[in-house]
């Protein structure tokens, strides 16, 4: 097509600068060129257009496909699993139309559990979804099968679906991928995770070191203590703080033991005589020892109180109680958790320390104390919920639902299993009174957690404020639609 390139070259420069010559055209066009050039009535531009028209048609009429023998075809590997049903595929399309990532995750989970695949036409849509929704990536990758992995090689944004081994990801992945790998390994083989981290530790920069250290809180144990003690002297302040935070989670670490040394001297039960010496009772004595190891104030314990309800001494004791395992008190007082809490409840001045026990319970994930606090206290501690056995979690939430809705919604939305009907209704009622905060977007994200059994009761509740009623009617209709889609998903995979 050199002749056409020559024509374009002349078109670019202009006929005023460079007129066409016979050398510019193919041999077959020479006679036409000569005829056109010989036309004395036409100007240069006319001649150019005339010849370009002939060349244009010569080019397009003579256009042939290229014949290349060594072009490699690269078919996708065969699928080992079967595709989902048409009903399930249609249901998926409807879910994608709503934009509900919650329902999408639910659909993918069902598909994955049934070991089925999405139809090929939907694979690019799902891979694009997974670019934004990182939490869906593993399910999308699984449900898109071999075709998804094959397809992802053509689009660098879909690299996540390429199945790299954990070790490869740890060595070559981005910071987020590396954190995920470390977290996964920490759950399955904590010692190996520690080994990997120690191997690359000298090469990591300070920020990465601090980020990766955070992951160690998953599955932390005394085995980690020796190494954590060594990095307490790291050059980076961030790393030091993270190491200290991790050591504070270990009951036998030096720092926790240091706190306990102070506390067990400061808080004691003493027998006091009553009724003119005829009987006696156990009374709590709380007072810091005269000499307190000043080192503790360099580990995050505040020395001075800025709260009028706490003296400096009380604040120190409060922080220390919150930083030691609550189980230590059982041995110290030779009493059950329930009795220990009762000692603190007896006197008004001591009640203020009870929330510190709740904090310690969460910090050291003490389920026994968690249950006791949940049962015996009339105060709601959101962080305790997850320490309770599953059935009690909902009972606890429903008991304290009023006034604590936001915290309970925060807990509930982190769950992956379906809510009970009572909890779901408590939450939707609160949403009805706050329709702008808990709008379609909220339910798009979390509707998969709602049980379909609440559909008939959704419309029964009316918001307290009359001007919210129309908004709530629209939202509740939308929730109904989402729940109907959830039911269809369940049916499609049943």
């Amino acid at each position, binding site marked *: 097509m050199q002749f056409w390139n020559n024509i374009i070259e002349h078109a670019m420069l202009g006929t005023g600068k460079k007129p066409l010559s016979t050398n510019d055209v193919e041999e077959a066009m020479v006679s036409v060129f000569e005829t056109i050039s010989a036309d004395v009535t036409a100007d240069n531009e006319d001649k150019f257009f005339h010849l*370009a028209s002939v060349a244009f048609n010569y080019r397009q009429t003579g256009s042939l496909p290229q*014949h290349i023998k060594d*072009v490699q*075809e690269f*078919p996708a590997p065969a699928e080992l699993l079967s595709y989902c049903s048409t009903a399930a595929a249609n249901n998926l399309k409807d879910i994608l139309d709503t934009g509900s990532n919650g329902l999408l995750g639910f659909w993918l989970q069902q598909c994955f559990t049934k070991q089925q695949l999405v139809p090929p036409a939907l694979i690019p849509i799902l891979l694009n979804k997974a670019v934004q929704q990182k939490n869906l990536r593993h399910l999308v990758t699984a449900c898109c099968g071999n*075709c998804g992995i094959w*397809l992802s090689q053509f689009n660098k944004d879909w690299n996540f679906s390429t199945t790299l081994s954990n070790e490869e990801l740890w060595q070559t992945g981005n910071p987020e991928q590396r954190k995920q790998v470390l977290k996964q390994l920490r759950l399955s083989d904590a010692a190996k995770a520690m080994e990997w981290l120690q191997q690359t530790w000298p090469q990591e920069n300070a920020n990465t070191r601090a980020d990766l250290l955070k992951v160690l809180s998953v599955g932390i144990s005394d085995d980690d203590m020796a190494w954590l003690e060594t990095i307490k002297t790291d050059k980076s302040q961030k790393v030091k703080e993270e190491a200290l935070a991790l050591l504070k989670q270990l009951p036998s670490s030096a720092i926790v033991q240091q706190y306990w040394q102070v506390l067990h001297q400061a808080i004691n039960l003493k027998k006091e005589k009553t009724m003119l010496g005829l009987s006696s009772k156990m009374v709590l004595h709380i007072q810091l020892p005269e000499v307190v190891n000043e080192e503790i104030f360099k580990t995050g314990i505040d020395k001075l109180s800025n709260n009028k309800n706490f003296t400096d001494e009380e604040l120190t004791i409060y922080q220390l109680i919150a930083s030691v395992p609550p189980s230590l008190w059982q041995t110290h007082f030779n009493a059950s958790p329930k009795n220990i809490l009762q000692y603190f409840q007896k006197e008004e001045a001591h009640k203020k320390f009870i929330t510190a026990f709740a904090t310690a319970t969460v910090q050291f994930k003490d389920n026994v104390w968690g249950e006791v606090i949940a049962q015996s206290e009339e105060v709601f501690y959101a962080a305790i919920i997850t320490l309770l056995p599953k059935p009690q979690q909902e009972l606890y939430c429903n008991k304290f639902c009023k006034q604590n809705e936001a915290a309970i919604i925060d807990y509930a939305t982190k769950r992956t299993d379906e809510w009970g009907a009572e909890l779901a209704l408590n939450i939707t009622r609160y949403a009805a009174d706050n329709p702008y905060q808990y709008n379609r977007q909220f339910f798009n994200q979390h509707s998969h957690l709602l049980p379909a059994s609440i559909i008939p009761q959704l419309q029964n509740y009316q918001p307290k404020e009359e001007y919210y009623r129309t908004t709530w009617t629209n939202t509740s209709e939308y929730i109904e639609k989402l729940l109907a889609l959830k039911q269809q998903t369940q049916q499609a995979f049943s």
Partner: protein
Amino acid sequence: MHLTEEQALALAPDESSKKAGKDLSAQSKWVSKGMNDQALWGECQGSGSKPYQTQIDITSIAFKCSCPSRKFPCKHGLGLLLLHAKQPGIFTDNEPPAWVAEWIGKRQVRDEKKAEKKDQPVDEAAQQKRQQARDQSVEDGMEELLLWMKDIIRNGILNIPGKEETFFTSMTKRMVDAKAPGLAGMVKALSNTNFYKEGWQSIFTDQLVRIYMVISGFKHKSGLPNLLEDDIRSAIGFTTNQDTLKEQQGITDTWLVLSKQTTEEDNLTTERNWLYGTQTNSYALVLQFSVRGQGITFSLTAGMAIEAELIFYPSIAPLRAIIKRQVTTNPVYSINGMSDWKQVSEAEAAINSVLPFGLERPYIMQQVNLVQHNKQWWLTDKEQRLVQLKDNYKNIYILLSVSGGQPLDMAVLGKENIYEPLGVWVNGGYMEL
């Protein structure tokens, strides 16, 4: 009527209608429903006391609803069609209520009236005078356009990307004033050249040359075949009277809708429907225009096969057509695609040799595969002949995913060596891409 859910949804004027239509495709939303050979109808309970009466002429897919929506079709029409696609068995009532019978009757009367209207005499002298005046106006406009093009080519196209927008828009407007809307469109296409794309110079020159051929052809029309003259007039923007066209005998066939491409500009929606005649092995382009959702006569959707009589606009290489009569929708058809790209290039050469300024055409090809070669995407046939995939083809990943890198029968649109896939046959059915 055999429309799948996807085909029914493709009739929706916008995304919100699709969603609303889906919501109304539940049996519980419909107070009554029925169907016979001519119509599909139902009553949908809306927010008012009286249900909306929705009816569909299933022979030519036309909608009517008593709701106040300006959308066409409305969500009720879509919902009813979707319900039928999902559960055809529940439409057991085949006795049309009065409001359905009345509408269907009116449609028949209107068709008859149209036929009568055609018989009214026309003032031929006045018509000829108007025609001459228009020809003169067009010729004057063409002279100006040619002068403008000569200026461009004399100075060279190198500086064209830096030109102000008005450089093109003023000439576009001049062509509209000269009653040559086709040429106005061609100038607009010139201004739409992507000057950031490598090789824009060739694309720009191609378009200049096409305009030149149309102008030159019009000037020398007396020596050209009548049909080519019709093509030239059509490219300039002279319209063909559709009523006159409809008087002709058309081609009745089962037409498969290969693709429906919709574009919107200045409130005008243009629907480009690419059709394939399954028995005549011919291709057609049916254009439909609508303003704010009104004006579409036939509801077509990709993958739909319609039994219809089409009349082609006069052309030396006929492609554009109108639907004279749609009998019914018909899912039974077979395709007879070309076996390799060589056949396509031969067909193209035959067309280009008689109609040099024609645009892209559709073809059905057997067993085409999408392959990568020298960092470019190509469509290869079983003889390992390759044509280039159109740049930035938006459905490349869907095509890859559906084909899995295996050859498929494919409908394509293009010319010379660049094509874009319109749809593929998978699992025995046609799927638009």
